[in-house]
């Protein structure tokens, strides 16, 4: 019953046993993958949430600053909002580049080995 998790395999792959998962989880190779993922994704998450909260708090408590006109009717608040869009696009791109370069090859190697039964 508890094995109700992974999508069913359409091709013939070996499903590793429980001991194997524990073994892999404790391996240096997997530790490296986990570190490479967490040390990138976690600080970045904290970073963009702080950056977003800064925007929310400035909107609330720094009305004068946010209302400063920069050019024409475009004020700081408007530019700040558009910057949130820009940073979102940028972070998505940055993470995806990191994942493709650093995470995918490591993950693929472990997966292939586990499913191949080597």
């Amino acid at each position, binding site marked *: 019953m508890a094995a109700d998790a992974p999508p069913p395999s359409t091709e013939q792959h070996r499903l590793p046993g429980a001991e194997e998962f524990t073994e892999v989880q404790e391996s240096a190779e997997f530790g490296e993958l986990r570190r490479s993922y967490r040390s990138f994704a976690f600080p970045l*998450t904290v970073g963009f949430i702080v950056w977003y909260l800064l925007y929310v708090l400035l909107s609330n408590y720094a009305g004068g600053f946010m209302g400063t006109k920069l050019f024409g009717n475009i004020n700081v608040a408007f530019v700040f909002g558009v910057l949130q869009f820009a940073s979102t696009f940028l972070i998505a791109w940055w993470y995806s580049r990191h994942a493709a370069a650093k995470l995918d090859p490591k993950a693929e190697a472990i997966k292939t080995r586990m499913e191949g039964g080597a």
Partner: protein
Amino acid sequence: MSPAITHVTLAANEASEHRGLIITLFALFVVATLGITVWAGRQTKDAADFYAGGRQFSAFQNGLAVSGDYMSAASFLGIAGAIALYGYDGFLYSIGFLVAWLVALLLVAEPLRNSGRYTMGDVLAYRMRQRPVRTAAGTSTIVVSIFYLLAQMAGAGVLVSLLLGITSDAGKILIVALVGVLVIVYVSIGGMKGTTWVQMVKAVLLIGGTVLITFLVLLKFNFNISDLLGKAAENSGKGDAFLEPGLQYGADNLTKLDFISLGVALVLGTAGLPHILIRFYTVPSAQAARKSVNWAIGIIGGFYLMTLALGFGAAALISQEEIIASNPSGNTAAPLLALHIGGVDSAWGAILLATISAVAFATILAVVAGLTLASSSSFAHDIYANVIRRGKATEKEEMKAARWATVLIGVVSIALGALARDLNVAGLVALAFAVAASANLPTILYSLFWKRFTTQGALWSIYGGLIVAVGLVLFSPVVSGDPKAMFPDVDFAWFPLKNPGIISIPFGFLMGWLGTVLSKEEPDTKKYAELEVRSLTGTGAH
């Protein structure tokens, strides 16, 4: 009758003359999507087809469908309306709704695709005792989806009263019932495959319609955004304050706190929305899930930038009185803008209004379909198959249960849809985000990343977050004690904030931690090893 109201009635009459056009456009969409549904239904043979569309959609297709699932009546009607009435403060919704995707991208989409099968409950229950955790996950999936459904149904009622000049309750209930019945057909026959295609078609229509109106608005101002903002500020009668934060939320410390609460709920809600999460199962791999989120961020981000033009455009070209007279929460600002930009008394204006309205209907249908599918999947897969039948149901029985659950949830949404007519649609959706962020997100993150997390932690966090979030909404000014409340004539609101996020989200996280450290059972380290290795490498996921 005040001049403003006369004007709106005229606008509505103008629209009524072109009622035939509106109905034709809408009927075209319905016929096309029903065709897709029948086609998809023929290809839906097993549970993986019904729940996950056979996992064969490309990253771009899924990105488009995710966008179609996410850009709801709240995004289109609600945000444009909030900007049209409150100026800059409406912008916060779109920023929160967009930044939230980074949580999904960085922390949730890929591990979920790698370790789950059909529902959010698959991941939450992975290393826990199945029955209690799946019951909890199913309950919160259905509650969150119903909050979200309410908003879409409110949007449908609002549209019909504008377009067809129907203000009677019977007319609105009829249209809500129509939406409900269509969605029951889409989902029960077409499953995830049909729903995905409906969402893709809708996304293309919505982007097309928005690009058109945005272009026409900008054209009117010679593509000078500063002029557009200036005219909006002037015409709103609020001057520069219209372009600064604070019109809606800046009144006092309480409303400022409400603003923070809303902001937190928006940014943390997306990654806990079941109807969004199940979309990641429709692609072949975690990499494809990542790419589909990237497509979605691009499409949704572009769309939200355009809602600025819609909202400020409406403020610049239509009087505040007219916007409010048409709908007190501004929900009809976008269709009104279409009418005005084409010319109130011209055929072109009526055509634009008809087009935008048909697009809005399509939007509502596609989102309601996604929500209904998420709820019925969770009911069938988590509650029926794994709790009631203890995993002994055959695939056929499970799919049959899913189809019946679809009918049931459709009927419930029709019944509830009549209740929430004059609330701002974006505000209602923000509540769904708060509930999702309080009940689902803590459990998802703990499950994936915290080795010690236990069944008791999962249950406390889901039920704790859910009960506090829903409870606070119940006793908030959204439900009673406010002229715009669901029940304006009674007052049992002792919780002052309209959005509970600032209390309920930390509470959900706290309960997950507390439930775990106080738990007598040992965490299942073997199952966690399995979950962690699977979620990061995709081993066993195909």
